[in-house]
């Protein structure tokens, strides 16, 4: 990409690269390359084991669509080959036409990509994943108290807060806590 001058470093702007925690991202050649002063890259690694949530490539708009499209393309090609009397099945030289079809039906759809990006809170930078119910349920008591704090830099919309108000359990909460909760609240209010 740098050889093609795809990301010109003008006005101090550096390209930003968002990666998963795969081992190859920490290999020396890669680290050396991104830290070259001439072609400096800013690389960030997302939460390991959480790629299903934050990684754009793992979205249904990209990888899953690609897999579906490639399966369909292989089916169609095999049917076509049968119809013209070829019985050699799908061969390596068929790979590029198949990939071309699948690529068009997955990664090139700009509008769908935009949706995948905004769903994961990357553009706009709206921390959208923090509204994910499963993730929200792992909040500690301290975090849930910070959530409503004015100085905190994350502002959740009120519409979600209303629903979660009385039922917020945290990863540190046990069933016993929940059972005694009404009593605690009553004693606090008293």
């Amino acid at each position, binding site marked *: 990409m740098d050889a*093609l001058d*795809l990301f010109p470093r003008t006005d101090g*702007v*550096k*390209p*930003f*690269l*968002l*990666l998963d925690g795969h081992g190859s991202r920490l290999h020396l050649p890669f680290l050396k390359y991104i830290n070259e002063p001439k072609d400096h890259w800013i690389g960030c690694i997302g*939460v*390991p*084991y959480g790629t299903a949530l*934050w*990684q*754009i*490539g793992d979205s249904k708009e*990209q990888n899953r669509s*690609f*897999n579906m499209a490639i*399966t369909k393309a*292989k*089916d169609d090609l*095999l049917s076509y080959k049968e119809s013209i009397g*070829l019985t*050699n099945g*799908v061969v*390596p030289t*068929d*790979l*590029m*036409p*198949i*990939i*071309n079809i699948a690529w*068009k039906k997955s*990664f090139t759809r*700009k509008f*769908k990509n935009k949706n995948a990006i*905004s769903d994961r*809170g*990357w*553009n*706009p*930078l*709206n*921390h959208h994943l923090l509204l994910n119910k499963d*993730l*929200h349920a*792992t909040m*500690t008591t301290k975090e849930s108290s910070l959530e409503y704090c004015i100085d905190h*830099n*994350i*502002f*959740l*919309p009120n519409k979600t807060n209303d629903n979660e108000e009385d*039922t917020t*359990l945290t990863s540190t*909460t046990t*069933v016993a806590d*929940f059972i005694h909760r009404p009593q605690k609240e009553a004693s606090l209010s008293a």
Partner: protein
Amino acid sequence: MYEAYLQNSNRLPYGHVGGLLSEMKGSHKWLTRNIINKAFMKFRKDLKNVSKKEDEKESPIPEEMNLEKSTISSALTMSTVSFESDFRLGRPVGSTDEKKCRDRKKIIDAKNEIVKKIAAAKNTLKEGKRMKRGKLKQIIKSVSVKRGVSNKILPGAIRRRVEQNSLVNYHVGGGQVSQMQKIEPTIVEIILQMARIRQCLTPSTGLQLVNSLIKDTTTQKDLLEWKKRGNSNNMEGYLRRGYWRRFMARNKEKIVSKRGQKYELNRQNWTTYANFVHMYDHCINEMVEAVVAAKLHEPVWMDRYCKICDERNAYGCKVDHKLIRPDMCICGDEVGGSISMKGDGHVGGQLMLVGKGQVPMKKISTNDKKFTLIGLTAFTGEPVMCVLILEGKRPNPSVEAGIDIRITPNSSCSDADFIMKNCGNGKYLPGGPELFFEGRRFQLLSACTNQQV
């Protein structure tokens, strides 16, 4: 139609097209439901194209981070941005069950009200006197209209209930109400929250939880008294499997019991709210350092297309940083594949016709050539680059160029310019995907490896 669509959270309200159809059928006899649906889809598609063009016109680098200016521009385009890509007709998921539940409650309430009114009217009568002829039917009609009950309420059923002095019923067909009903919403909430924090309860632990919740409480006392009245054999004050079955049936819209899915411990440990907050904070800081994002003077609500809006239409949390160079931010992920069709799924689940008792057989190719594809996407949504890693010891030009047998070559194989004439996207030797990024054309980057891909 579009206004109704927006008001109903981007879905056409149920029966809206039918209403329009019956309204216009008199003047336009040729009109059908499909014509209306298609016209509406086309309208939305056109609208989407207009907004896309507007997006493209906008410069990726704002001259200055002027909040007021962007507010005005967002206000101007607000009317055209709030729609989703999926167009779905019909009622939202779960609304049918909700409606059934509401209707059932309406009937129960209406019957209770009628019974109470009739009982009160009977009490005011002098001994030996009868109610005025048609009074019962009149009350049934007025209450049904008031409560919006369309089902027929039989006068005989009301008379029987008044005779038996059964003024309040909790079910459509009569029957007792569970003493546990008042705490059941709490139990349901606990079960749902425990599932969210990935500590799902099993039916037996759920029953234990219920028993522990009511232990030494007034609910348990009520339960015991109720059991005494019913001459029950179980006087221990504990609930058993029978209760659990009925509890599940009562709350079937909210909770179900199903087999668990394996969830990695690592994922459990890493996928936490705190880690995601750190990830966002860290990445945004780095983006600011890379001068691709800038802090806003004041946090604002934004919709999913980066337009400033009010909180009601906002998507996600409040935005305090804005990407000023989304074209300089890229992300990529690899996807593996093979030309073998062995592990392919049933895309779309296409059905096949076959004789009864026979199994439809589908031919598959088992030739294998594995590959890994890395798609790099900019945060603008544009694909930047396609990297393909092929399995093999040395590069194979015939695989890299590919052969599209569905296309007839331009010239004979023996011609000197055969490759020049037939090379390129959409030709006999198509090569990899072509990309256009920042107005420039790029070809696939391919490499081969003898390692496992």
